[in-house]
C-alpha cells in the first residue's frame, strides 16, 4: 500500500486486528449482498451502502463501552452491524419482512435496537444530531456515565440544527461525541462546492468544543481518536468532535450514476487506501495471520451474509394487521 503512515508498528494484538478485519469484512460483504438483492428487486426504495467507510464505525465501536449509545443517518447498515445487531434482522428489514428489526415497517433508513442502544437510522439529513445530544442529555440527567456517538455526514454538517446542537451540548456539557463522517460528497456535491471552510472539525471551536481530524481509512487511528473523545466526555468535560475522513466507493444511493467524480478517483482510493486491505496487510506482514487464516474468515463471513440473505428472502411479509400496530403505545405498556 502506497504512502500510508500506518500505525501498524504499535502493539496491536493479533486478536484485536483479526476482530477489526472480521467486523469490517462483514460490513463490506453484507453491503455487497444488499446491493445484489436490490438489483434483484428484493430491496426497494432508497438503499445507501457503506462500502469504503467500514473503518469509521468499527474503530469507534472499539472505543465504546457497554451501554454507550449511537445514532446516525440513513447510511446506517454498517453502524448496526458494528454494534452487534443481527445481520439476519437487518437484512430482513431491508427486504421488508416480519423478521426485520422493525417488522418490515422501517426499511433501510429507519432501524432501531433498544437492546444494542442503537437509536436509528434517521432519514432526514441532520435530524439525528439534536436527537444524539438529547440521548446524552438523558444520560447526564440519569447520572449514568454513558456516552452517545452521534454520526452525521459532511453534507449534514451544513444543517442549522447541527450548530443548535453544538451550542446546547457545550452549554450543558453533554457527553456526546459528534462524529462527522466526511466521505467528501454530499450526495453529488463535492465538499468544496458546498462547504465554505474545508476543516469541519474546527466548527466546534466557537462553541468551545475540541475537535480533531482523523484518517478514517485507518481503523487503528479511528479507535485511538475515539478513545480520546470518549475519555473527554466521561470526564464530564462535554462534547467532542471527530471529523473522520473517509470515502464511499458506491453511489450516494443505488440509483446514483456517480457522474460527479471520475472512475479513476474511486479506483485510486480502492487500490491505495482500502481500510480492509490495510488491516489485512498488517495481519500478514506482522505474521499475526496466514493467508489461509484469512481465507477461513472470508469463508465464514460469506456464510453469515448468505444466511442473512436467505433469512431475508424466506421471512414472511408482515401480517396485514401490522399496518395498524405500533402507532400508539398503550399506557402502562411502554416500550422498555
Amino acid at each position, binding site marked *: 500500500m502506497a504512502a500510508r503512515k500506518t500505525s501498524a508498528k504499535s502493539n496491536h494484538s493479533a486478536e484485536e486486528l483479526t476482530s477489526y478485519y472480521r467486523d469490517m469484512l462483514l460490513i463490506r460483504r453484507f453491503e*455487497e*449482498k444488499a446491493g445484489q438483492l*436490490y*438489483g*434483484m*428487486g*428484493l430491496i*426497494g*426504495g432508497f438503499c445507501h451502502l457503506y462500502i469504503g467507510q467500514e473503518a469509521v464505525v468499527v474503530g469507534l465501536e472499539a472505543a465504546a463501552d457497554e451501554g454507550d449509545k449511537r445514532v446516525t443517518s440513513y447510511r446506517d447498515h454498517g453502524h448496526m452491524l458494528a454494534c452487534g445487531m443481527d445481520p439476519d434482522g437487518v437484512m430482513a428489514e431491508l427486504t421488508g419482512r416480519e423478521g*426485520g428489526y*422493525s*417488522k*418490515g415497517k*422501517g426499511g433501510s433508513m*429507519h*432501524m*432501531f*435496537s*433498544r437492546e444494542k442502544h442503537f*437509536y*436509528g*437510522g434517521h432519514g*432526514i439529513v441532520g*435530524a439525528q*444530531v*439534536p*436527537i*444524539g*445530544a*438529547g*440521548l*446524552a*442529555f*438523558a444520560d447526564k*440527567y*440519569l447520572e449514568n456515565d454513558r456516552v452517545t456517538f452521534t454520526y452525521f455526514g459532511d453534507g449534514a454538517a451544513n444543517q442549522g*440544527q447541527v450548530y*443548535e*446542537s453544538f*451550542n*446546547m451540548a457545550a452549554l450543558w456539557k453533554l457527553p456526546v461525541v459528534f462524529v462527522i463522517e466526511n466521505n467528501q460528497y454530499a450526495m453529488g456535491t463535492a465538499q468544496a462546492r458546498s462547504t465554505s471552510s474545508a476543516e469541519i472539525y474546527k466548527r466546534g471551536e466557537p462553541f468551545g468544543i475540541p475537535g480533531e481530524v482523523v484518517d478514517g481509512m485507518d481503523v487503528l487511528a479511528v479507535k485511538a481518536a475515539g478513545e480520546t473523545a470518549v475519555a473527554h466526555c466521561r470526564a464530564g468535560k462535554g462534547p467532542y468532535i471527530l471529523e473522520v475522513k473517509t470515502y464511499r*466507493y458506491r453511489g450516494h444511493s443505488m*440509483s*446514483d*450514476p*456517480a457522474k460527479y467524480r471520475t*472512475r479513476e478517483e474511486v479506483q485510486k482510493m480502492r487500490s491505495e487506501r482500502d481500510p480492509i486491505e490495510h488491516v489485512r496487510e498488517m495481519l500478514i506482514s506482522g505474521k499475526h495471520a496466514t493467508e489461509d487464516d484469512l481465507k477461513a474468515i472470508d469463508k465464514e463471513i460469506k456464510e453469515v451474509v448468505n444466511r442473512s440473505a436467505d433469512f431475508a428472502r424466506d421471512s414472511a*411479509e408482515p401480517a*396485514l*394487521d401490522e*399496518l395498524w*400496530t*405500533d*402507532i*400508539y*403505545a*398503550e*399506557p402502562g405498556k*411502554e*416500550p422498555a
Partner: protein
Amino acid sequence: MATEILMPALSPTMEEGTLAKWLVKEGDSVSSGDIIAEIETDKATMEFEAVEEGILAKILVPEGSAGVAVNAPIALMVSEGENISEAELDEAHSQQPAPADKTLTSESAPAAAKAHPEPQAAPDRSPDWPEGTELRQQTVREALRDAMAEEMRRDGHVYLMGEEVAEYQGAYKISQGLLEEFGPKRVVDTPITEHGFTGLAVGAAFGGLKPIVEFMTFNFAMQAMDQIVNSAAKTLYMSGGQMGAPMVFRGPNGAAARVAAQHSQDFAAWYAHIPGLKVAMPYSASDAKGLLKSAIRDPNPVIFLENEILYGRSFDVPMLEDFTVPFGKARIWREGTDVTLVSFGIGMSYALEAAEKLAEDGIAAEVVDLRTLRPIDYATVIESVKKTNRCVTVEEGFPVGSIGNHLSARIMEEAFDWLDAPVLNCTGKDVPMPYAANLEKHALVTTDEVIAAVHKVCYR
C-alpha cells in the same frame, strides 16, 4: 456450474432498462467490484458492477438492447477453469425473469383497506368528577402549573424545558414557582433554538426521560415541525414498537390580540392530521389540568394546545388529590335538542355564548367540547347529531382542511340519514391575521356568525 448475471434494478422505480454497453467481453476475467456494463434506467445511465469473481463465459443480451426486464439473465459467469454446458445455455435463454416481489405480495390486501379502525362503542358519559366534590375557582394558568408540579412530584423523569421557563418564570407565567421547587436540573431554560431543543427533547425521550417542551407560542414550533412529525410521531411505528417518544409539547396556540399574522394561527388541524401524535386543546381550567396530567403520563408524544386569552379565565376545578381527564372523551357543556354545536379550545367561548343567545330565541343548542382532537370522541358527536339532526362546528383555524371539515365528513358517513340540514363549519377567515383592530375582529370567527349558521341549519 455457471452463475447467471441478472438485469439489475438500479432505481426505486425501475422495471426494465436498456443494456447500453458491455465493458467486458466473453472470456474476460472479472473480479468483485469491476464495472462490467452500463445500464440506462428510467433516471440515468448507471454502471453495473460484478459482485462475484470469475470469467464472463457468455453474453446473453447484446449491448444496445432496450426493454430488458429486471431479473432477466443477461450473462453467464463461470469459475476459473470451468466450462459452460449447452444445457445451461439453453436454460438461460428460455428463462423468464421472475418478478421477485409480485409473487410474494399477499392477495388479501383489501382486508386492510379500511379507512379507520373500528367505530367506537357507546359514548362515555360519566362525569369528570364525583358528585359532591369540593370545587374552587382557578385560572387556566394556575391549573396548568399545578398539573406540571403534581406530575413532576410524582415522577422524577418528568422535566420541563423551553425558553424562559425557569428564571423568568415563563413568558406567560405558566411555570411560576417551578424552578424554586424543582431546581435547574428539571426546569431548564433553553437558548432560542426551537429546532434544536425540540430534537434534543425527542432524544431525551428516547433515552428514558419524559420531557415537557414549552413553546413560547406554537407559532415558533413551525421551526421544529420536522422533529415533531418525523422524529417524535413516527419512531414507534418505524421501530416496530421498540421505542417511542413519551413527551408533551405545550404552549399557547391560536390568535392572541393584535400580534398579527406570524403570531396568530391555530394549528389544531395540522397536528390532528398526524398519526402517532395525540392532540389536546382544552377550554376550561379543569380540562387544562386533567388533560395535561394525562398527557404527561401518556407514553406517546402529545401536542397540548393552550390559548393566551384563556390563561387568565377562571373556572371550577375539583379539589381532588389526583384529578385527570382521559383523552378521547368529549364533554357536553349544555344539553339541547335543536342543534349540536361542536367546538374545542377558545372556539367554545363562541359556541357557549351563541347557545346562550339562541336560547333566548327558543333554540336549544347542545354544546359539545371535543377537548382532544386525536383521538376524537366521534361517538358523542354522532349520538348528539342523531338527537338534534343538525350540526354547526366552531373553531378559530383556517377553513380549508379544518377539524370542522373532517367532522362533517364523518357525520355524513355515520349519521347521513339523521341530518335535516347540511353541516356548517364556522372557522377563522381564509386570510393571514391582519394587525388593524377592526380587521382582526373580522378575521376571527364570531358569535354572530355561529348564531347565523344555527338559524340557517334550523331554517328559522
